[in-house]
């Protein structure tokens, strides 16, 4: 198959899978097989696109002209390929986990869950392979709408309230800020195509206008959870854990920071931004988000809430690194997308396993749980190490490049923020690991073992990936380096 056909297949396959899943509603095993087969197929297709992109090709596919002069089009380039690989690979693992979770907790509406999941992956692949801002916006909105049923899965008042914050903030920022930014870009630049070096270079905009436009983009891309538009992320924790894993690792937040990177590198252009000094405020906002979110995470007792704020913080690592505007930090930002995805999904898998096996949701309840669930907590420990940035876990490498990049850019404040936040991350993760393994469980607790085996299998795979990523780092690194 030609690269163009592969790209089309990558976007269409999950949607077709969604139809199959919907049809298999009455036969759960067939339905689950459909999900797994679609996910495996998607990962295979994405992998087959990889050689072409690594070789320097940028295959494109124009689908149709939606507005005069602007088409819905796909183009495979390094950053997009990185995101696509992460999303498609983790979908398979997440599906395995979901089967265990949904059956283990006897959740209702399972078909709707798997269908929306598959559709979310269509949107994610479309986003990853988008060739211009309009295509990106189209799939970005589709992702928001398709994940709403997932967030409100339980259908109770709490889910409804969480869904409202989720939808309200994401649609509010995308329609209210991102859309005007895109229209303005079209009006100023005459094109919306992602171009290396940016499309606003020759638009002759004054520095303040560029800065304002950048602000519209950064806050308009609400999925990147820059404060103060981050509230949707903790609100979305009402969802079942596989959904949280999807949100935090596979698709939604990754779509956000991916879009941020695309905008900075391919719409504005690193040169333009550093010449006009329009992005000077961005490291400050990102830095503030990192620290503030870490502090909230420290004080959160609910495990998923702590993980949510940890994600807010980690996402701003990506934004911070991107805003330093040196090639090394941009590569580090891209790498961190992959690293954080693998690490965070492990943590969420562990949280879900703890809930399914022991019914526990608070950090304070986790004393001694490591003895009863060694695989789960072991994986948790690995994920935590990665996010803190301790070798040999993958997180060390992206953090290392970020430190180097900040030093290269001479941005001492960024260095300070990175250092302090590493300490804070350790402060909110290590005690959990410590309590799990080294403290005795409270007396009179019912015995329980590990979670159902699909869940344990999934989290073992992702933990192993976290450890193995540095050795397989050639590919993501090559992709990250090829961005600029």
């Amino acid at each position, binding site marked *: 198959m030609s690269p163009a056909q592969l790209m089309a297949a990558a976007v269409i396959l999950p949607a077709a899978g969604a139809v199959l899943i919907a049809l298999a509603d009455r036969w759960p095993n067939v339905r689950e097989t459909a999900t797994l087969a679609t996910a495996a197929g998607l990962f295979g297709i994405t992998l087959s696109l990889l050689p072409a992109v690594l070789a320097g090709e940028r295959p494109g596919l124009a689908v*149709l*002209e*939606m*507005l*005069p002069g602007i088409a*819905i089009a796909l183009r495979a380039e390094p950053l997009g390929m990185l995101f696509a690989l992460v999303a498609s690979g983790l979908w398979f693992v997440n599906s395995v986990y979901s089967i265990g979770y949904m059956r283990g907790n006897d959740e209702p509406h399972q078909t709707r869950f798997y269908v929306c999941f598959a559709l979310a992956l269509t949107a994610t692949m479309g986003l990853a392979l988008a060739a211009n801002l*309009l295509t990106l*916006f*189209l799939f970005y*909105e*589709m992702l928001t*709408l398709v994940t709403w*049923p997932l967030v*409100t899965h339980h*259908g109770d008042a709490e*889910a*409804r309230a969480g*869904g*409202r914050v989720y*939808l*309200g903030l994401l*649609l*509010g920022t995308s*329609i*209210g*800020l991102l*859309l*005007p930014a895109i*229209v*303005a870009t*079209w*009006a100023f630049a005459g094109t919306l195509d992602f171009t290396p070096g940016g499309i606003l270079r020759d638009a002759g905009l004054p520095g303040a206008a560029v800065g304002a436009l950048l602000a519209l983009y950064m806050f308009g891309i609400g999925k990147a959870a820059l404060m103060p538009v981050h509230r949707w992320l903790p609100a979305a924790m009402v969802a079942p854990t596989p959904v949280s894993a999807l949100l935090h690792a596979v698709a939604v937040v990754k779509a956000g920071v991916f879009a941020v990177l695309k905008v900075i590198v391919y719409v504005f252009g690193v040169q333009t931004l550093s010449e006009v000094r329009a992005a000077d405020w961005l490291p400050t906002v990102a830095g503030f988000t990192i620290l503030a979110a870490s502090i909230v995470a420290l004080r959160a007792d609910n495990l998923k809430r702590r993980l949510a704020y940890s994600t807010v913080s980690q996402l701003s690592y990506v934004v911070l690194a991107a805003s330093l505007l040196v090639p090394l930090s941009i590569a580090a930002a891209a790498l961190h997308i992959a690293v954080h995805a693998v690490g965070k999904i492990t943590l969420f898998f562990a949280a879900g396993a703890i809930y399914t096996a022991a019914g526990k949701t608070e950090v304070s309840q986790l004393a001694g749980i490591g003895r009863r669930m060694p695989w789960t907590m072991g994986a948790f420990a690995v994920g935590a190490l990665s996010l803190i940035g301790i070798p040999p876990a993958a997180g060390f490498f992206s953090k290392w490049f970020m430190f180097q990049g900040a030093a290269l850019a001479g941005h001492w404040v960024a260095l300070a923020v990175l250092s302090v936040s590493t300490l804070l991350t350790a402060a909110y993760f290590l005690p959990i690991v410590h309590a799990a393994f080294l403290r005795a469980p409270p007396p009179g607790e019912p015995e329980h073992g590990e979670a159902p085996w699909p869940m344990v299998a999934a989290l073992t795979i992702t933990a192993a990936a976290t450890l193995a990523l540095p050795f397989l780092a050639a590919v993501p690194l090559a992709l990250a380096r090829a961005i600029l």
Partner: protein
Amino acid sequence: MTLAQLPALVVVVPLVAAPLALLLRRGLAAWAIATAACLFSFAAALLLAGQVAESGAISYALGSWAPPWGIEYRVDALSAFVLVLVSGIAAVVAPFAWRSVAAELPRDQLYLFYTMYCLCVAGLLGMTITGDAFNLFVFMEIASLSSYVLIALGRDRRALLASYQYLVLGTIGATFYVIGVGLLYLMTGTLNIADLAARLPGIAATRPVLAALAFITVGMSLKLALFPLHLWLPNAYAYAPSAVTAFLAATATKVSVYVLLRFYFTVFGVHTVVEVLPMPQILLALSIAAILTASLVAVWQAGLKRLLAYSSVAQIGYITLGIGMASRDGLTGAVVHLFNHGITKGALFLLVGGIALRAGSANFDRLRGLARAMPLTSLGIVIAGLSLIGVPGTAGFVSKWYLVLGAVEAGRWWLAALVVGSSLIAVAYVWRFVEAAYLAEPTAATPGRGEAPFAMLAPAWLLVAACVWFGFDTSFSAESARRAAVLLLGGGAR
């Protein structure tokens, strides 16, 4: 030979179908004639639009009396576009109407309904195609009188008062229009629109002409329900039979917008409207008021029909906002939203008609858990609702794009912020339905499992599919709108 007579046939066929339906006295036969007439008009409108796109405007002299003395039918880029919309909606609603109206009207009145329906379609099509200002009034009254009757046929007794109020306000509006045309006739001695356009430039700044502009503006604003002259609309839409609401919501106000566009840009010309009188500023102010207040009021409504009626007032505000921008992209946005809103609201009211049939009414207390009972209807409302919000991939997005583009190009950032901000209010009232239908538990008032009949669901989903189609393939809608905008701004050189 018939092709040359097409401009006349578009109007004459529904017009003749009306007395035929009356004479036949049987509901089913009357319905069949009405549907056939609407389908014919739709086919004719498509042919005309194709011809205009290829070879430019068509001029047809009625009765072979040459203009400007005789009445002329004129099909150009703008009127062809509106013809397609009106006849298309008429052709889609007619098959829907059979089951819907049969449930709401007594059997012996059905043939009267279809008589009025044909008259209304003929009137609206005539308003669009005619090139004579007074002839436009005649067709306007044909359409209006028949719509007063159609609304009064609603089951609820409040439909009578709603129809009466619409009658009074609509007649005042039409009379204002006639006053305006009278003043123009006094000053130029002609009623032909093209001839008026040729004769006005010299005397454009005189007081009678400016007064005529003002009268026509107010008259048409009453008809298109521009804030604050919209008070008749919520009641009329809420209490009329479902098929009537769907038809009128998608067409009547749109044709009045067309008349306004025709007079503003073709007759008076951009210069008079923009520079001599502050029409853009007035239109902008009223449009903003319409969008904000009507959207907010819509959020708190207890019934889905009323909610959608207020939403219509807000969406008409978007159209007049585009007119107020008086730029190429603004006008393109206005004209394309005319079309997009027509199909979106048509789809929504047709689906709500299905709910009204199954549940007895469309109040929110009957909509809880509707997704389980009527999954296709609920899904259709969600998709059309997304078009109201302006999510990419739906027709509504295309309109919003052009409106925001027009605002950005004019440097009016606050206006762009307003357009997108008000879309968020639309999220609030669309999501009220989504939460009620999908997240709430069914109550005793919710209908049992069972969709609306196929004859009602199919036309509705045809329009829903159109919402999505025209969100991706804008070659017809946006292109036609752009051509119309260029034509209008170019002085309407005919």
